[in-house]
């Protein structure tokens, strides 16, 4: 929509006029005049008056602030604002409905039926899979429409996502939840995830699981009886099929800015004791510390919220992370997960199998 004439365009690009003469200050100001807002002294060209300029009181006009006109203008703006918002609110609702239909459609196409084979089929022809997938979940206090409120709902989501990742073959899943309630009950989390994995894979083929959180000891109980009985025959065929391992990393808002603050405190203390020269603080140092302390960079971040908002997700780690969200989506869905993986692999979604 750049309504620039050629001479203006040339001036803009090269700083010269049409015939190559360098632009003087005066030229430039003249050229820019129509594009700039009026300086307070000059009069506003308003659509209401310019066709037939009233000739009655020209002297008064340039001086007075014209309360009537500015009042009318603000009323007009308010009207347009209301109109725009009405139109857009209709549009947003329509869009949400449309997206809901699309989501239903995808949900019908892609459903896991709690069977690893279906999930593996969905991701089989993807060029690449993330090594480290991250999701942001929310603890719904009392959401009556979703039916997944509270800790139980959250835990349920965690279990499902972990199972999908295990099926797809993603070895590291980090789950960000702002409050960090899950960190307080890692053993329970581990137990319910194991149960879910069992219901997906069956007792004998269940992948091993470890649940950990930054600055807390990793929770991976000694391998469960069926798996411990297996490794007696470490032939290549069995190791390929058996023993996939999945690590679940629980993150909370504390692992974001606060961890960086803690690191700064430690560094400051070291500097005070003169064991560290502040000049030695480099991005590499911080990166190594945070990688060991919290986690590395996830390759893919999946949001199940209707829009992109990071809500305190660790800032250092999201540098190059692909952020995926489905507009207007609400709640954890298998189809969102699959679409995120497809999007990550830049694969076209194939309708049908």
């Amino acid at each position, binding site marked *: 929509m750049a309504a620039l004439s050629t001479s203006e365009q040339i001036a803009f690009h090269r700083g010269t006029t049409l015939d190559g003469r360098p632009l003087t200050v005066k030229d430039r100001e003249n050229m820019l005049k129509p594009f700039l807002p009026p300086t307070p002294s000059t009069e506003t060209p308003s659509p209401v008056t310019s066709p037939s300029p009233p000739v009655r009181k020209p002297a008064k006009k340039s001086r007075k602030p014209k309360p009537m006109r500015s009042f009318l203008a603000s009323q007009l703006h308010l009207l347009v604002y209301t109109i725009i918002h009405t139109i857009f609110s209709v549009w947003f609702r329509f869009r949400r409905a449309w997206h809901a239909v699309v989501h239903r459609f995808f949900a019908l196409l892609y459903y896991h039926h709690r069977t690893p084979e279906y999930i593996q089929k969905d991701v089989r022809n993807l060029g690449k899979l993330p090594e480290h997938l991250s999701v942001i979940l929310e603890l719904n206090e009392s959401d009556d429409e979703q039916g997944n409120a509270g800790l139980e709902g959250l835990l349920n989501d965690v279990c499902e996502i972990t199972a999908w990742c295990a099926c797809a073959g993603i070895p590291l899943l980090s789950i960000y939840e702002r409050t960090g309630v899950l960190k307080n009950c890692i053993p329970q989390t581990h137990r319910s995830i194991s149960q879910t994995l069992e219901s997906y894979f069956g007792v004998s083929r269940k992948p091993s699981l470890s649940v950990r959180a930054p600055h807390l000891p990793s929770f991976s109980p000694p391998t469960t009886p069926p798996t411990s009985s297996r490794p007696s025959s470490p032939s290549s065929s069995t190791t390929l099929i058996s023993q996939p391992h999945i690590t679940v990393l629980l993150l909370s808002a504390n692992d974001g800015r*606060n961890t960086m603050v803690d690191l700064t405190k430690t560094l*400051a203390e070291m500097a005070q004791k003169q064991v560290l020269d502040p000049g030695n603080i480099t991005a590499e140092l911080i990166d190594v510390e945070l990688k060991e302390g919290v986690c590395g960079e996830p390759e893919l971040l999946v949001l199940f919220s209707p829009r992109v908002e990071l809500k305190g997700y660790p800032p250092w780690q999201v540098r190059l992370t692909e952020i995926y969200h489905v507009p207007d989506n609400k709640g954890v869905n298998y189809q969102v997960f699959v679409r995120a993986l497809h999007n990550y692999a830049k694969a076209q979604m194939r309708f049908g199998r």
Partner: protein
Amino acid sequence: MSDSFHNSKIRKWFASSPPVKWGMRQLRELLIGALRQGPIPQHVAFVMDGNRRFARSHKIETVEGHNLGFEALARILEVCYKSGVKVVTIYAFSIENFKRSKYEVDALMEMAKTKLCQLAQHGALLDRYGAAIRILGQRELVKPDVLEAIDKAVLLTQKNKRAILNVCFPYTSRDEITTAVRKTVIAYSKPHPPPLKRPFSETHITRNIRAQLLSTVPEDAPPQDQGSRPASPSSSKELNPSDIEHSSAASTLMNHSDKSEATPAMTYPDPENITAATLTSNMFTSDAPPLDLLVRTSGVERLSDFMLWQCHQSTSIVFLDCLWPEFDLWYFLPVLVEWQWQKKKLEERERGRLRYKLD
């Protein structure tokens, strides 16, 4: 190809005819004026992505693509400042971009030189909207001649107070965070200046206090005294419990001063006082309001090392499919309206919650 070229020519001719031009400008004014009626984000950041792809798809030179990108920037800055945005942050050049071809890097630098001056000149866009340029990033990586030019631009707009244009010049967010951490550490590793000598002696004051306490104690002390003795029998030879308390508080103080005596007259600020706010105030964007909106064009859904610290709380991040040179009010308007809409929703919900709490 020729057909589309012809079409675009006609369109251009049509768009540049005076009545259409005038009408468009009035429409823009009207829409911007209308937007002003609602809440407006105070701080908006743009990742100007897609210049090269635009150039490739339109079969023009890369540098020309960047030029068109700059025009888009000028347009969008106008929209932002007119509608009341206080701070605009743009990702002009990443430290990683130095890895591009030398030809392109040089061209970009040259562009930065001329364009920043153009923006800053008297009577030009920034001046008219009262916006000051700030350059965020690693200055050491820029060649001296470019540095001189951008410093001139910064100086020219220094007096403008109404708005700010942050140009992230050779910038990455990790570098920014590292710099902030380093600055904080340096600030905290500077010892306090040695305390001034005051004309009162502390020992003298303690002795006076003790004398006062001793003279007041005998009337009401005995029952208290008995009560507290068994709890701390070995504490000290001092007579009254209030003094014990006092001395314990004093002993921590004493310890502290012991430590500072070991390294003569060096007291450091306590690192425990470092908070996220300390780091925030050491970021390049310390004086800007929190980031409300981050827009990235060209459909890439990554932050690419931009505003990591600033945007990870409640910033709405919007990824648009259009390429940056195409970006204009018509793409920005829906984003802004949606932002306003969500803002209103949020406020309504807050109000509802408040009412719920009050009931």
